């Protein structure tokens, strides 16, 4: 009994010491996983996940603090990619998935308060105090962060219309009626 305890204790001490030494000797700064996760996130910086941006969310996922299904702009596609990378189960998205949108400023109503410019995380709004603001459409990530601050509610979210440049060939559909 004593020898058993002694041997297990010895083992614990030896292995613990080895691991402790290794964790100091082989310390690595930064987490390469965070970068990989961040590359999957859509970089809208919208904060809908509850974290102040895509990078903090990536760090939270990497640390195991956050679930992988909190990013509505990334959609189910993003969840699937994260699950693939991390070897976790695919989970349905927390919020509902929306089509890609961009913000539109109603230029008649805008009073030029610059609040939306300050809210935009990706510098996609131009304008100056007392001047009308407008959104640079190709740069808008659709994060909706500018909608709330507007005091005159002149910003609305609109789905991106299909045009010739972003049109996609559809998945070939098998017509069951014809086969029958």
């Amino acid at each position: 009994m004593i020898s058993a305890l002694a041997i297990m204790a010895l083992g614990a001490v030896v292995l613990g010491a080895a691991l402790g030494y290794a964790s100091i000797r082989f310390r690595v700064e930064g987490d390469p996983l965070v970068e990989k996760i961040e590359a999957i996130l859509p970089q809208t910086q919208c904060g809908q996940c509850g974290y102040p941006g895509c990078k903090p969310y990536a760090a939270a996922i990497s640390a195991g603090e956050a679930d992988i299904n909190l990013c509505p702009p990334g959609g189910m596609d993003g969840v699937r990619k994260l699950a693939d990378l991390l070897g976790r189960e695919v989970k349905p998205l927390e919020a509902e998935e929306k089509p890609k949108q961009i913000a539109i400023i109603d230029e008649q109503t805008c009073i030029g308060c610059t609040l939306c410019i300050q809210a935009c995380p990706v510098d996609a709004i131009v304008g100056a105090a007392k001047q009308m603001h407008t959104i640079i459409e190709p740069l808008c990530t659709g994060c909706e962060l500018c909608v709330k601050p507007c005091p005159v509610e002149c910003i609305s979210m609109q789905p991106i219309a299909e045009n010739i440049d972003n049109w996609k060939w559809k998945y070939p559909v098998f017509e069951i009626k014809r086969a029958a």
Partner: protein
Amino acid sequence: MLAKLFRFKGGVKPQTNKAISVHEPIGRAPLPARLFVPLHQSIGGAPNPLVQAGDSVLKGQLIGAADAWVSAAVHAPTSGRVLAVEEHVAAHPSGLPTLCVVIEPDGRDEWIERRPVDHHSLPPERVRELLRDAGVVGLGGAAFPSHAKLTPARAVAMEHLVINGAECEPFMTCDDMLMRERADEIVRGIAIFRELLSAREVLIGIEDNKQEAIAAMQEAVLRLAPDYRVVAVPTRYPAGGAKQLIRVLTGKEVPASRRSTELGVQCFNVATVYTAYRALACGEPVLSRIVTLTGNVERPRNWEVWLGTPMREVVALARPRADSSSFLMGGPMMGFEIPDLDAPVVKATNCIIAASPALFPPPPPEMPCIRCGACAEACPHELQPFELYWFARARNFGKTQEYYIFDCIECGCCSYVCPSHIPLVQYFRFAKSEIWAREREKQAADAAKERFELRNARAEREQAEKAERLARAASAKASEKRAPPDPGNKPAPESAPAVDQPPAAAGEVAMTAGDAEAIRKAAIAAAIERARSQRESAQPRNTDRLSAGQQREIAAVEARRAARSTAATAAASGTAAATDSGGAAVPPAGSRRDD
């Protein structure tokens, strides 16, 4: 002149159906009541409109200038009045609209001043610019701007110039008729291209089922340039594919995702060469093209059609039979169903086929892939379509790229031979456009991330500057306290970080520190009130008191915005810098308010 010919792997031999449309010479299609000339007719950047509603244009006048190096100009096909610059359905499988210049012909067909040039006397760069400004693009169907292909590779000497008269698509005869009727111009055009590329040898490849065209070209070559070689190539689809024809004529195989220039070969379509000749020697930009009208029609024939003519009017020339169910643009192998006959003829429209259930019976239902390998045998690019299909179907796009999906030229050989009637090419197109979309999203995300990081860095810097200023002000105050107060020398109120904002502005709601909160709230309230009253007074566009010049400017900007020009992206990089200096950016002119 016996030439050794090579073979490309794969290919199929569909029924050619070419004989029906070569009985009559090329006809000149009448001018329609309205021309819808799309501004974006080539691969590359979309040209910006140079005209606006109400302008009168002359035949050959530039209406859209090339936007980038890989882009080609667009011209008015006839003289008349511009009715509008607006969105109109495009000759595109999606049936979505694109920006078009709508011209009402005045019937006079009055030319702008034509300036023929002698290309010998000009430097090659100038000739390439002229070709771009004449709107010369590949007329085989891809519409790639030709001038961009006319720069010889620096490392490799140009060995062969291949002129593509193969025209392997069934039904199509526009190149055939062009070679029969206008061989001289083609041969003269080849001379221009040869000089630009300083190519050692010229090979004109024509499929051996076009004996008249071969004879006509040979006769013209003998007369004008005896050292060109007209080569009859075996009829086998897709012998007219650039890489296939290069393989057959020179034996060179263009490796995956490399350009033929790197091997010292360049390939042009005969119609392209013809338009290039017209552009330089006659000063006539590309205003029309030859279109084969065939299929289920009473009068199959080739017509020279003005670009921008609605397809409905073009099709009527051939008198389609009553049972025609749909119309294809391009050949039956690679073409697509025209979603709307209001779409105009563009530079890529080489053929319009009236389809009927009898002519093109609906494909039998798709059956499971049995991995017989027939598609791999037929593939002229030596791909493995069954693997590509498998992964495209499973939406495993990474794998499709590993199997070189982007080397697929969508020739349709695999679908043609598939015993299970699987629409393989549709799967490949689907996979390709999904990959492109993802690529775009990825790039947008990367750019957004970069801007976000820049913004954060800027915010940090501003914070630090503000803190520094506050500290300075505090220390100044402290020293002031120590010294006797001097009423004339107050420390400047350093709290507002925005530098050049007018003081006492009622609508001013920039960041102000501390006690300005109440003022700010009042200002917002006032602004909301004003906004509401303004909305009630309902000025639809705020543009009714503008001068004609301003209105024109606005219209131009609106049109540009609709065209989604890349300029916006460029402006974006400026934005970060502009908003940087405390929000002093000027709003775009198109949205200027006049109150």
